[in-house]
């Protein structure tokens, strides 16, 4: 593809035009990130009067800290569960809506609403539904012999944040899956039907492989989402508890830094998270755009 090159009257103009974007990025992203990297190598005294360079001490300690390693495991479980659940349900919903001809738009609009709900509100919503004293679901679950109390039971707390985070993300995945499904030509489905493949076989051998670029893209986006954007959901429902059971990596950055006031360790943790994002983004750019095609 040949791209059109614009010729500017003066050499400075293009730089001037991109300057606002560059300045915003530098002040609000690059500089704070640089500060985090810097303070992850430093130790500050309790009164903030002096800092000393400690090298990789914070990193070393983190990887020996059982609480941190446990949080890593929890985050992996959380990220995987949310990605699988929200993508799975979104694919089912998108396939269902894709079969509709006239009412499709109405369903799509309704299914998009959760995405417009802010993470904190989503969290509180589910917190109410699952509230062990006033919530409707624990009341129902009691008939099945389940004693629901996510304020005491760590496993249940994890289930709660997985549900809340997945619910919010389904809309986004749904939209992409629906667009992906609509770009699969109808004639392929028809050809496969004539070739003797039933609806399920058609889906798994024709439609699903053709959706692979969308699926891969969403996988990366969802992993990113669960690792970083779920802070609001967790803070509003469980606040990392009970007993650290929902303290994921991103929540730990906050609780160690702002509540525990261990700025050095918190910075080191955010630098590690930053590396995760960088790796995921690189994978996304390299593979989504080159490898995953047909």
């Amino acid at each position, binding site marked *: 593809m040949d791209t059109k090159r614009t010729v500017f009257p003066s050499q400075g103009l293009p730089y001037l035009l991109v300057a606002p974007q560059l300045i915003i990025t530098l002040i609000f992203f690059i500089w704070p990130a640089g500060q985090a990297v810097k303070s992850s190598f430093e130790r500050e005294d309790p009164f903030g009067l002096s800092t000393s360079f400690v090298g990789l001490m914070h990193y070393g300690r983190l990887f020996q800290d059982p609480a941190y390693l446990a949080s890593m495991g929890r985050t992996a479980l959380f990220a995987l569960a949310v990605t699988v659940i929200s993508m799975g349900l979104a694919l089912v919903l998108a396939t269902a809506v894709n079969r509709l001809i006239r009412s499709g738009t109405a369903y799509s609009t309704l299914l998009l609403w959760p995405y417009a709900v802010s993470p904190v509100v989503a969290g509180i919503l589910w917190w109410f539904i699952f509230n062990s004293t006033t919530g409707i679901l624990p009341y129902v679950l009691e008939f099945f012999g389940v004693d629901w109390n996510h304020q005491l039971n760590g496993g249940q707390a994890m289930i709660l944040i997985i549900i809340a985070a997945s619910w919010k993300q389904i809309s986004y995945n749904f939209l992409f899956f629906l667009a992906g499904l609509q770009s699969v*030509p109808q*004639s*392929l489905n*028809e*050809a*496969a*039907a*004539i*070739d*003797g*493949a*039933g609806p399920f*076989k058609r889906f798994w*051998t*024709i439609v699903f*492989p*053709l959706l*692979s670029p969308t699926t891969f893209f969403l996988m990366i986006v969802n992993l990113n989402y669960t690792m970083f954007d779920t802070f609001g959901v967790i803070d509003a429902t469980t606040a990392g508890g009970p007993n650290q059971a929902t303290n994921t990596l991103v929540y730990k950055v906050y609780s160690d830094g702002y509540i525990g006031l261990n700025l050095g360790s918190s910075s080191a943790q955010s630098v590690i998270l930053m590396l995760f994002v960088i790796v995921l983004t690189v994978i996304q750019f390299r593979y989504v755009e080159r490898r995953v095609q*047909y």
Partner: protein
Amino acid sequence: MASIDLKGVRKVYPGNVTAIHSVDLSIEDGELVVLVGPSGCGKSTLLRMIAGLETITDGTISIGADVVNNKEPAERDIAMVFQNYALYPHMSVRQNLEYGLKNRGTPREEIDRRVAEAARVLEIAPFLDRKPRQLSGGQRQRVAMGRAIVRQPKAFLFDEPLSNLDAKLRGQMRIEIRRLQRSLKTTSVYVTHDQLEAMTLADRLVVMNGGRIEQVGKPIELYDRPASLFVAGFIGSPPMNLLPVETLAAVAGATMPTLTPGADIVGIRPDQVVLGGGDGIALSGTVELIEPVGGESHLYVRVEGIEQALILVQQGRANVGEAERIDFVLPIQALHGFNRESGRRVE
């Protein structure tokens, strides 16, 4: 291999839009029938109803001895070649060919044998391990054909398979499809809007218009004796000249013959018009435009008193120039009479 029978077939879409009005058609075993007509005439809908991709509102469709109205496309044992080929983009050519056979549980050796045979016939053996996007339009077309023939179905259905190819390739593939169909002797239904393709391919031609069949017959029969005004105007290039009788009578004067009662439009093929003198309706006019096609020339002649220009075909090079006056004759035996109101032929 089987015959295909359509009895009183109708298609009504939601909202009471009738796409097909009661069509009766029987296609014999081994025959290649071409459905031709302008876009929106219902030819593709009819084909898709035979394939099982559209439901049948009324009437019956049978393939061989079985009524297939309620059968899934897979159970009808037909193969279809789509306009956009519909090759599975994530599979290699070989996998594309094997897909239908695997779904039917054909044994491995049999699959290999049939794929090898199809690849040999269609000369696609060198590309078997490539993906469809690595192939040219003509090669994709061959693969689509291959996918149909490996199945050895009762019938082939073609939905404008050549319309995405350039003119030269279209001509080549047309001949190949004809040759292949002759050697396999598989009953085929072929849909096209291109009347030249239709004429050259068909054993029998079905001209459709507005969801109805206008005429069925051998291509030459349709050319020689069009049963309606629509067929007369649709088949043949350049198209038949169609003139209102009263205008023609006013211009022709004494040379105007008495026509069959009821005929108020007469038609004449451009190549039947005789330049110079002779028996028939004598006319004269001014040459407006000459289209040299190579082997023949098309003359657009303006006759005073007649609204539209008449088209004349002269073999070889035109021996008149533009803006010159010429005399010509419409031989009586070459005239086709039609009734304007019914649109049908009057004998």
